[in-house]
């Protein structure tokens, strides 16, 4: 065990993991994140807290993770490179570990022009792969990036992301391999809608034997409305929603039920793909649907290890 978090235990035991996402509030009221934690804790093995996703200012991921931890949730702290240099990053990692936040997910971060402060100066001192490198060095060698020694242990279970739908397709697995080489323990993918393309990507992952070195969690997004389907297809960078999914949503009498059905069908197929070790549910602004998804996907009860 690298950090002994609940997520690591579930994945190491070979069980099919379920994680979900809890976006922090645009304010300082703790009850918002606590409510999401209470709602989701029995239905997933760990809960991701996003780090100012789409470059919109929210409560910090670290503080939100601490609030969740107090509820008994195993938090996954997302950390992006957009807003912090290597000094702040390493300092925040030490603080997080001290507070019991041991799962950290490394991302480069959405560019600031997508958010509410497009005129901000970005940092990008490191990129996501270098962030993974820094974290694994802190954990394995107990050294800062500078080479100076860290006092004490830095238990971390290190996550990263990959998008099987971004271009160039063939290069995506090579890039995943670099993340594994840099020290990633688990991978969350961008949302899967086109399952056959994802299966093709997973085949390349398993061909390289990467599924033996890293746990791949397939991302899923339940679609709540026709508008959301269209918006994700047309405007959200990195997300690829096939027209067929949008048409199904348009033709449905009950859009929410159809969105749920589509999501469950995708999970059903994902479970059969070799090398996939779990799912990560990103129910953006629809967290209350997660218990239903996990239950109807036959993934309850969650293991107690």
């Amino acid at each position, binding site marked *: 065990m690298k950090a002994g978090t609940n997520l690591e235990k579930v994945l190491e035991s070979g069980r099919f993991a379920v994680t979900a996402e809890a976006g922090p509030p645009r304010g300082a009221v703790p009850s918002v994140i606590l409510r999401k934690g209470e709602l989701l804790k029995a239905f997933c093995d760990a809960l991701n807290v996003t780090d100012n996703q789409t470059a919109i200012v929210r409560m910090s991921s670290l503080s939100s993770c601490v609030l969740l931890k107090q509820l008994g949730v195993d938090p996954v702290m997302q950390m992006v490179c957009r807003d912090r240099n290597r000094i702040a990053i390493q300092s925040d990692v030490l603080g997080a570990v001290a507070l019991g936040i041991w799962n950290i997910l490394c991302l480069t971060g959405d560019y600031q022009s997508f958010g509410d402060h497009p005129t901000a100066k970005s940092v990008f001192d490191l990129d996501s*792969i270098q962030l993974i490198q820094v974290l694994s060095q802190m954990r394995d060698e107990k050294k800062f990036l500078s080479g100076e020694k860290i006092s004490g242990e830095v238990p971390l279970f290190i996550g990263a992301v*990959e998008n099987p739908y971004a271009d160039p397709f063939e290069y995506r697995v090579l890039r995943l391999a670099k993340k594994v080489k840099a020290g990633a323990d688990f991978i969350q993918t961008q949302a899967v809608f086109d399952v056959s393309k994802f299966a093709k990507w997973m085949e390349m992952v398993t061909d390289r034997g990467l599924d033996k070195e890293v746990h791949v969690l397939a991302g899923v997004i339940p679609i709540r409305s026709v508008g959301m389907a269209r918006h994700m297809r047309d405007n959200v960078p990195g997300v690829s929603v096939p027209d067929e999914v949008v048409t199904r949503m348009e033709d449905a009498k009950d859009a929410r039920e159809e969105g749920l059905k589509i999501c469950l069908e995708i999970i059903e197929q994902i479970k059969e793909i070799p090398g996939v070790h779990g799912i990560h549910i990103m129910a953006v602004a629809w967290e209350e649907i997660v218990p239903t998804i996990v239950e109807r996907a036959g993934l309850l009860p969650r293991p107690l290890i």
Partner: protein
Amino acid sequence: MLVSEQKPMEEILRSLDGEKRIFLVGCKGCAEGCESGGEQQVIEMKQKLEEEGKTITGFSLIDMVCNESLTRMKLASHRQATDSADSLLVLTCGIGVQSTAAVVDKVVHPGCNTISSGGAHAEWKEAERCLECGDCILDYTGGICPIARCPKNLFHGPCGGSEGGKCEIHPDLPCAWHLIIERLSKLGRLDKLEAVVPPKDWSVSLTGGPPRPR
């Protein structure tokens, strides 16, 4: 004036490792003024590389390598010598390296680090090509600069937002990493990207460290 200085010889030799036949490009503009890639430095580099057992298939001194069409024309007249070379070593600022890479289908190595723009941004106006990061990595990226051309300055791109060769930030902006992969695939050198590049020393960049005397 783009201020550049030659990379240490050990670094140049490391980047030329495994390659025997080299074509040299020098610049009679800024690099000559900086004594990093003018006529004299090109001749010295030729001798140094020959002492290391390399064959210099030829060299070209171009008035302003940053002038892409001039560079294209000049190098066309050396077609045979560039074709028979394993790679080109370009003793100019980062812009000259990129304009050379843009006109020759060969591996192009930067022989200099770009230290400062000294106020101007040379001749290639189409887009930003060099942010004077002070530690040129064009060798790793096939002569296309991700520091200047990727909004996130990624060392390991493309990010998850790259689609159809375009940057997620703007539909008119090519994804720099898509270009890098395309070029290295064409050259059969995708292996260059297998490396995990450690965090960069930003202290030598235009925006890092104390202001430098020019």
